[in-house]
């Protein structure tokens, strides 16, 4: 279980996150909402070890992971699916997937590959094609599937809906939801598509200019007038 305490970090001299606190408790899916530049991606990068914290701690199952390298963090079961997909365009779908489980045994990888392909049948058909030849939606599926190859206990999803058609977004969110419910993977979801994100998550946090300003269950957030005005377009839920 993930717990973040007083996390502060940034790039170069610029402080981006200020004393961020976040606690997964028993939630399956937690969403962090926020406008562009609020620091959501920075938060995810810091959890996965790409960015080092300046101050504060990140606990995973009570263990402080804030000084660990990305490899070590990934080995503990925290997997980061980056914004903009970042699949490997010149590698085949199979190679992309195998790299997701880089530090696992070949045998374990093979079993996981079969399981993952069951979840994403579209990828199975294109297993020997180059990643760069997939459509945008397929690439996002591949990015998530690649993350699953590491057998994560916590999946960090950064803007999975970015640049996708609404129907594909719904499909991906359904997949995420079933992952959390059936496979027991916890998911930290960072999204601009607040409505769909809140629909599938248990808990939500709202981030403004690098600070958490509001948190609560998804239902509470959906009812909150501020959230509705700023992130849900003021419409009825």
């Amino acid at each position: 279980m993930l717990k973040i305490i007083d996390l502060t970090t940034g790039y170069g001299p610029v402080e981006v996150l200020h004393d961020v606190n976040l606690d997964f408790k028993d939630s399956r899916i937690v969403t962090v909402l926020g406008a562009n530049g609020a620091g959501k991606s920075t938060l995810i990068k810091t959890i996965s070890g790409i960015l080092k914290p300046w101050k504060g701690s990140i606990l995973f199952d009570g263990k402080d992971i804030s000084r660990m390298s990305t490899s070590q963090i990934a080995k503990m079961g925290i997997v980061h699916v980056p914004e903009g997909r970042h699949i490997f365009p010149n590698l085949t779908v199979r190679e992309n997937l195998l790299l997701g489980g880089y530090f696992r045994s070949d045998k374990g990888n093979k079993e996981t590959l079969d399981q993952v392909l069951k979840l994403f049948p579209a990828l199975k058909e294109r297993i020997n094609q180059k990643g760069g030849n997939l459509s945008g939606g397929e690439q996002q599926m591949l990015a998530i599937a690649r993350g699953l190859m590491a057998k994560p206990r916590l999946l960090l999803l950064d803007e999975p809906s970015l640049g996708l058609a609404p129907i594909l977004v719904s499909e991906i969110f359904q997949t995420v939801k079933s992952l959390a419910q059936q496979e027991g993977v916890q998911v930290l979801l960072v999204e601009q598509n607040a409505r769909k994100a809140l629909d599938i998550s248990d808990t939500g946090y709202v981030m403004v200019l690098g600070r958490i300003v509001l948190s609560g269950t998804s239902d509470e957030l959906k009812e909150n007038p501020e959230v509705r005005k700023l992130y849900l377009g003021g419409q009825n839920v």
Partner: protein
Amino acid sequence: MFNLVLRGLATGSIYSLTAVGIVLILSTTNVMNFAQGDTGMFLTYIAFFFILRGIAPSLTLPIVIVAGAVLGYLVYKGLISKAKKSSHLGMMIITLGLTMIFEGIVATFFGNIPLLFPPLIPGDPVHFGSVILDRQDILCLVTALVVFGILSFILYRTKIGIAARSIADDEYASRVLGIPINRIHSFIWAISFGLAGLAGIMTAPRLSLQPLFMVVVQLKAFTAAVLGGMNSVTGAIWGGLILGVMENLVAYYVPAIKESFSLLLIVAILLFLPNGLFGSREAGRS
């Protein structure tokens, strides 16, 4: 004609070996390694040192590969990984510094006088019907074939090789997946320096051994790499072979331009075919 082509392939395979080293390092670590040739030169002198002490020439083959791998690992760990903050051009200049170090060491211990490096397998040329080939040429071709076979197995069939290709594709994504970038970089430097050593002892018996003997080969290797698109190992292999054959044919039919041929080719390709013949994607000339 057939003879010319075969010999061209033998020479070309040396270019390929060198070019592959350059491309591997460039595409995974983003360093344009101007020390690839001189690394080979340095390792060949190490082989020569052993030959002087009575080791059979053919046994220096494994010696240079291992010594090269160790040297590549050390150079990466001790220098390149510490210099990550430098610009790309800064890294390139560091490799030029390396050439000065290698040349200086060799000149101090062996002087600048050309030395005779024995052929790895002695004996008369072999006749295949009308085709006559030096044993050394055959060795070059066979070695290159074996090396490229092993290399493509590593790059396409092993986890570390696939990971190396993934770094070339998108280093950030590899990092996000928790792939140990540094370990794979040092692996690539080890392989590339091993290849440099091989290219060195394949070249030395054809020319003579002196501190600058690999400079021309490196230049040709750059041509081969550029021909192959600069980011593709397959391209570099083909680039080297094609260059070797073209050079031989040009030297035979148009001897007047034989020296400058590959030099002008390099510039022409850079200017007019920026992705080379095999470059799969935008090579990013910056």
